[in-house]
């Protein structure tokens, strides 16, 4: 080969190599930048980075202290392996074994092992005040066996993976062993933690700022530790108004707030860069009726109320069109594949969940609720006068409007119903004490509809103090429902779960336990001024709301700055 050809070949190879490496650098993900978050009203931040504190500093959970597995809210029960690569049941369903990810380590470089998980469990066992998931109710002990954690259950409880996966934040044995009282420990920075954001830069009356853990154990697509961003900054906004003004002004990157008339305000300010998606995956917001009181103890009356509500008006006017009427079984889009067609058909036959004032009036007539004393309002079958209140929280404007619509709907069918706007504390105490007629209220989430049914119908939720916990506010219970709910936790077979869920749906519909209104919209807005990679309407890979632990953790593995925007990656 002549010399010139050799030189040419060498140059060509070099040029190709050079081109390919620059091309490679371009396709790698840009790093750096501080993103600004607002996730609702927030008082001055106080420093408490103990993930088991009653209300820890924001972003202590998930992105600082991590979970074994993440149940992605949008994936309907499937989990994303995290500190653990997965779990296994023993045949008798009394031993649950999590396999730890060998790469996992703390920000100080110490490996995160099964011993840390055992330490965390033993700490909770010694301090039941830290048991946020009530795991001590079904776990006896935990032991580390070659890179695995074995939980020994005291009784069969097949929801254990979900409860452990959602509540057990692993803390470092080597840093926490000497903590005298872990219940009141505020874990002042610098913290030893395993998450993506562990470096607390500021926590005061104006701002919370936490920066990346340079030693994070999971790698990005460029082979370097996640996350791609440098820091999270969360300003204090004492109300929604200043936060939303900052959002409209393009100052925020990631938002989890309610914004009224969002298309005309937030989006209109910059249609290309301001986005939102209110995934209707929240718990079912429902009208709760106090079934211990007449006339709400009469299923026909409850059914009439269900037919009297104008669901479209409630969701379009009351909720600004941010959500849609829910399936009459009470299961929203989150559990769409759990809906029992038989229960749906029964609901249709009973006229539930569909606006039909004539049917509502007919139902009331048939059940004997007619105007006996001629005052223009229907009375009780025994002739005594009937009037009731629909209670709602003062200041929750979307709900207040919804309740105004509903009480008008009830008046339209001849029922003397009035709205009762209450201070939050009073409203909630009334629900729990059973001192209300009807009320709007939230519902439960969860990977399976188990929590939804349990919180709605399980008699065990009436506390020793007589208070109705969870959403048992309507106090409709039955031995049949109790037995089904208990049976759910005794099998890990999905077919059996579905069978139980189908039966529970029949009970809920047949007895009109509540009037389900709409799935709770999950507030989530994002801007692409400086960052990208957020879940979008088209690619909603996880729940975008920054206040959702699982959603924000998964999102944080993907977002990165826009290098073409000056300052975005600083």
């Amino acid at each position, binding site marked *: 080969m002549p010399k010139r050809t050799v030189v040419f070949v060498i140059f060509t190879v070099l040029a190709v190599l050079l081109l390919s490496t620059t091309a490679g650098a371009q396709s790698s993900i840009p790093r750096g930048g501080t993103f600004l978050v607002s996730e609702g009203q927030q008082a*001055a931040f106080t420093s408490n980075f103990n993930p088991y504190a009653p209300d820890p500093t924001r972003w202590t959970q998930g992105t600082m202290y991590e979970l074994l597995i993440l149940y992605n809210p949008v994936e309907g029960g499937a989990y994303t392996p995290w500190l653990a690569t997965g779990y296994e049941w023993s045949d008798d369903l009394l031993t649950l074994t999590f396999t730890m990810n060998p790469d996992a380590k703390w920000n100080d470089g110490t490996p995160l092992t099964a011993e840390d998980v055992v330490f965390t469990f033993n700490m909770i066992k010694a301090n039941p005040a830290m048991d946020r998931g009530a795991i001590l109710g079904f776990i006896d002990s935990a032991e580390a066996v070659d890179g695995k954690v074995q939980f020994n259950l005291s009784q069969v409880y097949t929801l254990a993976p979900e409860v452990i996966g959602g509540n057990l934040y692993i803390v470092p044995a080597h840093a926490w062993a000497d903590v005298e009282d872990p219940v009141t420990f505020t874990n002042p920075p610098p913290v030893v933690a395993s998450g993506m954001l562990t470096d607390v830069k500021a926590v005061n009356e104006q701002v919370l700022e936490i920066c990346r853990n340079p030693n994070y154990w999971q790698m990005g697509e460029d082979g370097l530790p996640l996350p791609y961003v440098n820091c999270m900054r969360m300003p204090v906004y004492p109300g929604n108004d200043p936060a939303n003004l900052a959002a409209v002004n393009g100052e925020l990157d990631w938002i989890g707030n309610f914004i009224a008339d969002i298309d005309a305000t937030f989006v209109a300010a910059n249609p290309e860069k301001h986005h939102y998606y209110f995934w209707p995956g929240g718990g079912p917001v429902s009208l709760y009726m106090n079934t211990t009181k007449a006339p709400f103890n009469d299923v026909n009356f409850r059914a009439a109320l269900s037919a009297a509500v104008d669901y479209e008006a409630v969701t379009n006017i009351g909720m600004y069109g941010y959500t849609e009427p829910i399936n009459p079984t009470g299961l929203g889009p989150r559990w769409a594949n759990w809906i029992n067609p038989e229960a749906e058909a029964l609901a249709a036959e009973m006229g539930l969940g569909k606006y039909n004032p004539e049917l509502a009036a007919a139902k009331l007539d048939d059940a004997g609720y007619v105007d006996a004393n001629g005052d223009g309002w229907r009375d009780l079958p025994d002739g005594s006068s009937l009037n009731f209140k629909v209670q709602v929280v003062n200041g929750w404007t979307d709900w207040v409007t919804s309740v105004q619509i509903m009480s008008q709907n009830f008046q339209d069918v001849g029922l003397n119903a009035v709205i009762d706007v209450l201070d939050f504390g009073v409203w909630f105490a009334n629900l729990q004490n059973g001192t209300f007629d009807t009320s709007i209220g939230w519902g439960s989430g969860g990977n399976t509809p188990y929590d939804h049914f349990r919180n709605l119908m399980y008699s065990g939720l009436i506390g020793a103090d007589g208070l109705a916990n969870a959403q048992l506010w309507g106090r409709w219970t039955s031995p049949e429902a109790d037995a089904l709910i208990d049976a759910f936790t005794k099998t890990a077979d999905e077919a059996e779960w579905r069978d139980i869920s189908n039966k529970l749906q029949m009970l809920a519909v047949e007895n009109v336990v509540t009037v389900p209104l709409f799935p709770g919209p999950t507030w989530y807005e994002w801007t692409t001024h400086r960052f990208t990679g957020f879940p979008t309407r088209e690619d909603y890979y996880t729940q975008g709301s920054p206040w959702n632990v699982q959603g924000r953790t998964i999102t944080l593995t993907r977002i990165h700055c826009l290098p073409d925007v000056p300052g975005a990656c600083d």
Partner: protein
Amino acid sequence: MRFLARRFVFYLVAAFFAITINFFLPRMMVGDPVQIMFAQFQGRLDPRALDSLKATFGFVEGPLLEQYFTYLSNLLQGNLGLSISSFPVPVGQIISSSVMWTIRLLGLATIMSFSIGVLLGILAAWRRGGRVDSVLLPVFTMMGAFPFFWIAMLFLYVFGFLLGWFPIGHAYNIALRVDWGNPEFLSSVVRHTLLPLTVILITSIGSWMLGMRNNMIGVLAEDYIVMAQAKGLSDRRVMFVYAARNAILPSLTGFAMSLGFVIGGALVVELVFAYPGMGFTLLNAVNGRDYPLMQGVFLMITLAVLAANFIADIVYVVLDPRAR
């Protein structure tokens, strides 16, 4: 001196009653802190957490009287207890993080508004029908009659959002670290203070001005003013030393009260301008039934109002020989 000693004892007794009411009044509200903390998550917090939360807050329960005596003895040791909503952060720490911002902004605003208002009131009364009296007075009085939040939002929208002259929230640029030696930080604090300060001033000057003007007019009709003028004293001397010194006494009591209430913060200012302060801390404490925090804030307000009144008494003695 006997007068001041008597007043001091009176304030001590008043403080004791206030402290007692501080304890019992919040507990008469419906709802308990654990349930409310739980409810504020609106179903997002696993109901399974309830029992463990109750265990954490075990100290909340127990007979009321017993709690009252514990509260008193803690108070004597300067211990305000642990906050419930931000458990286990001490109440003192939460209060100290926001109280300085409140004192800075509202203290400054109150003193400025009082000084400017009183001065303008003096001038308005001295030249009745003059420009100060016929233009400034009605303008400021009208501004004071507008709902405060409306003016605040209007200013924020026009000067902060549309024109971009001022930042739209917070006490300083949150990208900066708190560092009082850093000139950049200081100028950021000043820039963030201007808008809320202006709004407070233009809405509050009117009442001071009107009060002072009316007092002045009464005093100006007194014989000793005519006497002073007849003696040939300068206008300025008559205006300030003879008339204003006597006319200011009623305004001074109001000023002392306002200074005392500064500690309570200005909720609307804080909500509109996202400014840190005691108003929102107190609102949160009440909404969350955070009894220790509420007690702490009320205690601060009570003590500040009493102290301010006591100082006003002393100033009275200095200004008005009849009070001695």
